[in-house]
């Protein structure tokens, strides 16, 4: 069991100006070499939630929140291209459609990431976020050649699928990325100071790569076995050959910064040990890079709501999120899924977004003040209302046996947008409250 309050308190101390060292965070005592045990910073973390993303970026949100990192920024492709990475110490990019992400970010986005890394930024990539910076000559991906490593599950001849054929393969340029297994796999951490005492742990694999490291790569963990929950999508022998003893987590320096690439979703909320490992590695790398950004700290400009105003505003939002989750829940009983880009989307993915909002509405109800920046006061309820209408349209079209793909594409796009704005309000308010309560 991880005592999250311990880490939240450490982060609170950092915010309060107290010194908290890497060894305190990692709990490894004397394992950290002399001179490496520097004070930690409270990083500003950007989470990419733009074109090509699935819902898994929400797992990074959960992880950071549980460990007390509230200075979170949510970026779409336009914001990355617009230079927003300059304001970050860390960029997290989770799962989705790798090629769509690359296409969305384009050469301009790739250039921004290159510059961010060069200036000491830390890139955390899992699944699609891990594929993205690996060397590739494929269209769109060639702009992101930051890490020299080979993908072990890249193939030209399609293997026979023994389970979930729709999940076992993704086009990857003129090749295919096949997914040998899904769900929990066993990993073994490398023996190095950053991961002292970690040994074996589990994390879920949902299509991420096995990797063979190239120059400058550090193997931080390898796939070392399967578990009783591992679901084989291809012949188990092929799965073993593809994954076992291959790199699952890679570290790679880039300029003054670095990349941490996770084949499995170590940020998945059901795997708290793996989550802790993510924060340990993050703390280590941020300490190493020394990148420090001048931040606009609270109090920020915006509309502050308090007391009954919060209740009233949240009630309007809650009404629409509730309406949406009711329709979304009903959709889960229907046998429907959509192929958007290269990814299959099932109705349950709608609820992943809505539940991420729903659960946090209650937290906001308890806040003393709520900070609504920009046009969030009006745009959030409006967007939520439009989402309900869209979901109901989609349900009616399904009932009438119509084509729902265009509606589904718009729906997931709108969900990403709504979630991004809501979470910005949420974390700005929480961080603001945390900072202001210290003053």
């Amino acid at each position, binding site marked *: 069991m991880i005592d999250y309050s311990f880490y939240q308190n450490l982060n609170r101390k950092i915010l309060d100006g107290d010194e908290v060292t890497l060894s305190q965070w990692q709990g490894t005592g004397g394992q950290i070499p002399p001179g490496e045990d520097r004070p930690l910073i409270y990083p500003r973390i950007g989470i990419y939630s733009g074109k090509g993303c699935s819902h898994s970026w929400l797992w990074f949100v959960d992880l950071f929140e549980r460990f007390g990192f509230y200075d979170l920024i949510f970026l779409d492709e336009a914001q990355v291209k617009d230079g927003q990475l300059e304001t970050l110490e860390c960029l997290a990019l989770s799962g989705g459609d790798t090629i769509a992400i690359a296409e969305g970010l384009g050469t301009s986005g790739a250039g921004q990431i290159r510059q961010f890394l060069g200036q000491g930024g830390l890139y955390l990539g899992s699944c699609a976020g891990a594929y993205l910076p690996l060397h590739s000559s494929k269209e769109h991906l060639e702009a992101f050649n930051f890490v020299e490593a080979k993908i072990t599950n890249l193939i030209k001849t399609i293997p026979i699928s023994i389970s979930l054929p729709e999940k076992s393969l993704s086009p990857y340029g003129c090749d295919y990325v096949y997914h040998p297994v899904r769900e929990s796999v066993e990993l073994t951490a490398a023996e190095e100071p950053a991961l002292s005492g970690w040994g074996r742990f589990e994390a879920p694999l949902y299509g991420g790569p096995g990797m063979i490291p190239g120059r400058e790569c550090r193997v931080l963990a390898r796939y070392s076995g399967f578990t009783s929950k591992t679901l084989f999508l291809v012949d188990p022998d092929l799965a073993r050959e593809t994954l076992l003893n291959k790199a699952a987590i890679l570290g790679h320096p880039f300029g003054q910064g670095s990349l941490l690439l996770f084949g499995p979703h170590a940020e998945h909320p059901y795997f708290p040990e793996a989550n802790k490992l993510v924060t340990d590695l993050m703390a280590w790398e941020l300490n190493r890079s020394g990148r420090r950004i001048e931040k606009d700290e609270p109090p920020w400009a915006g509309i502050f709501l308090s007391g009954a105003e919060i209740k009233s505003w949240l*009630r309007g939002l*809650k009404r629409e999120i509730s309406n949406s989750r009711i329709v979304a829940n009903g959709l889960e*009983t229907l046998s429907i899924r959509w192929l958007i880009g290269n990814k299959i989307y099932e109705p349950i993915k709608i609820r992943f977004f809505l539940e991420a909002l729903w659960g946090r509405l209650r937290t906001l109800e308890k806040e003393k003040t709520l900070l609504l920046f920009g046009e969030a006061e009006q745009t959030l309820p409006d967007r939520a209302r439009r989402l309900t209408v869209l*979901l109901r349209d989609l349900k009616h079209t399904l*009932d009438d046996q119509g084509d729902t793909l265009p509606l589904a594409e718009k729906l997931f796009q709108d969900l990403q947008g709504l979630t991004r704005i809501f979470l910005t309000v949420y974390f700005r308010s929480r961080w603001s409250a945390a900072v202001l309560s210290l003053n």
Partner: protein
Amino acid sequence: MEYLSSNKIAVIDLGSSEIAEEELDEGLVRENIGGAGINRYLYHKYESDDPLVIGSGLLTGTLVAGSALAVMTAKSPRTGSLCHAPITLTAGMELKFSGFDYLVIKGVSSKPVFLWLHDGIADIQDAGDLWGKDTWEATESVRKAVGDDLVQVLAIGPAGERGSGLAQVGNNYWASGDTWGFGKLLGRKKLKLIAVRGMGLLEIADPEGFIAQSQELLTEIKGGGWAGKAGIGDILAALGEEDGPSWLAPLIHRHKACFNTPYAANTFVFLDEDPKRMTEPETPEPGMLLTRFSDLLGFKQCGLSALESGRILKECARMGLDGTAVSSLCLKAGLKDLEGIRNFLPGADGPVDGQAAGPFSSFAPGKPLFADFGLAPDGSQDAAWWARRQAVAYLFGIHPLFILMAPELTEEKLLELANLGTGLEVTAETLDQAISEVVRG
């Protein structure tokens, strides 16, 4: 109220369209338990506004066997007394998880409206398009409008809109246990329907103890006399209509249980297609769900066949008419043929003979079902026993038929479960007092 509760009472004023919310005070639960007990308290609190109160029992929607019941309470347009009607199938459970423990619906709207209850939000919405529709059309329309087929709908049909004393509040497409003419009350309030969806969660004070105790009780119950029986036909037989099962058998498609209720008390019959067919029906809705033994018995006594009875009951359900009351009037008027009865339905109204005395619906028959409760053979204890059993069901949220089948559902065990679930320490004396008050009406 922290456990087994959403901690919310909504007071909905249809006159002003204002909705006030109150917390559910633990003291209220300690004294009145829940369901009909608290409904009754709230009714008297708002009595001058002629309220309809809807509430779930303390154990509604839980793992306790039979925990399907929510309760409607109001002054009956038919008797003028305070009465309770059961809400079964899955609507009671849905209400429990809707974010509201109790609803007080007071005042009269100036235009047709409906209530949409979801996740602790109560919305009064325009029902101009729904007014004039029968219960089936209204249920379809509102489900389509909110985009979910699992929404539970308590609706009135044309009978309620025109103010018939025989009007009932239906449960989705089917007849309910409203034997009090509450449909007329909703019509008077211009409240076409109440739509509910519950996606909330309940906290339990002692989850391990509560689950273990619920499972132990279920194990005891499983050996009861009801085991191996199902549906309305077997209930008719238990009440002395020996030919009930064979009379109904040719129409039976399946039996259906209410939420978490071991006995499947409802029977789905096919009226327009062969019930034995193994393929999808060719017509959109070839049959109907029979939810009340007395509806069927009433038309059987009129001399109709099972098929004819089913057809009439389907029309009653769509119009929002109390089938038992209609059959009683038909019998009195000597109507014995399908067409005569059918012609009677659109304007059906009038005083009903044999209306049950006391506050509980005749939805549940007045004696044990498939079980021996140790009552005197001459039936002299039946009435008092029945009222007490119904009170227990209506307080805790237990199916009012199933409580007549399961002697294992004792007052002591239900109280113990309620205390495990809520963390309150309600005593047997308090329960006894609450029962007495609810029985008194």
